[in-house]
């Protein structure tokens, strides 16, 4: 199973920050901080509009690992994320993921990732470690 992965293999996935998505995440997380739901307050703090909850990107990571890899028999062991720039409604994010380590002995694969928006700005980056479950 681990042979389906090679060092420096890369993957890409596109995500659109739609109203439905943001509404769903706000409901799920319960995070209704004014910065996330009120344009006037966000603009007053120096942003161009309300800032979408950055952890929405963690949901995209979950989707990517669970649904987009060559195998489904995986579980996330570790994930970190650095938020670099604000995320806004209607942004288009491109998730770019690269394999940086493969450990056959324990069935672990290590990835670097970054989310880039439609302006080619890095919105976040981080690391993921997954374990193959077969």
């Amino acid at each position, binding site marked *: 199973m681990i042979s389906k992965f090679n060092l420096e293999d890369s993957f890409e996935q596109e995500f659109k920050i739609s109203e439905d998505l943001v509404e769903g995440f706000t409901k799920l997380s319960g995070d209704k901080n004014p910065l996330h739901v009120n344009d006037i307050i966000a603009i007053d703090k120096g942003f161009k509009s309300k800032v979408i909850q950055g952890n929405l990107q963690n949901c995209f990571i979950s989707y990517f690992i669970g649904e987009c890899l060559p195998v489904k028999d995986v579980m996330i062991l570790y994930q970190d994320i650095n938020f670099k720039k604000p995320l806004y409604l209607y942004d288009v994010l491109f998730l770019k993921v690269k394999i940086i*380590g493969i450990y*056959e002995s*324990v069935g*672990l694969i*290590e990835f670097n990732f970054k989310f880039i928006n439609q302006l080619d700005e890095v919105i976040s980056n981080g690391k993921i*470690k997954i374990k193959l479950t077969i």
Partner: protein
Amino acid sequence: MKRQEIFTRVSSIFREVLEDDSLNINEKDGADDIDDWDSLTHIMLIVETEKEFKIRFISSEISNWNNIGDMITAIEDKL
């Protein structure tokens, strides 16, 4: 590399992965002897060991380890 040096570096890995700066290990210790050495931390111990010594194990090589001494012997064999 001498066995003692390997042991010292392995000790550091255990302290880091298990997040316990005061942890003292010895070669006879196995997973039952060290708090928080469970199946998930075991994975991270192996991965960090492979990174530290720039070696790679295969699953059959690690499956027979009973204690830290076996681990250090396996590292010695790879260096």
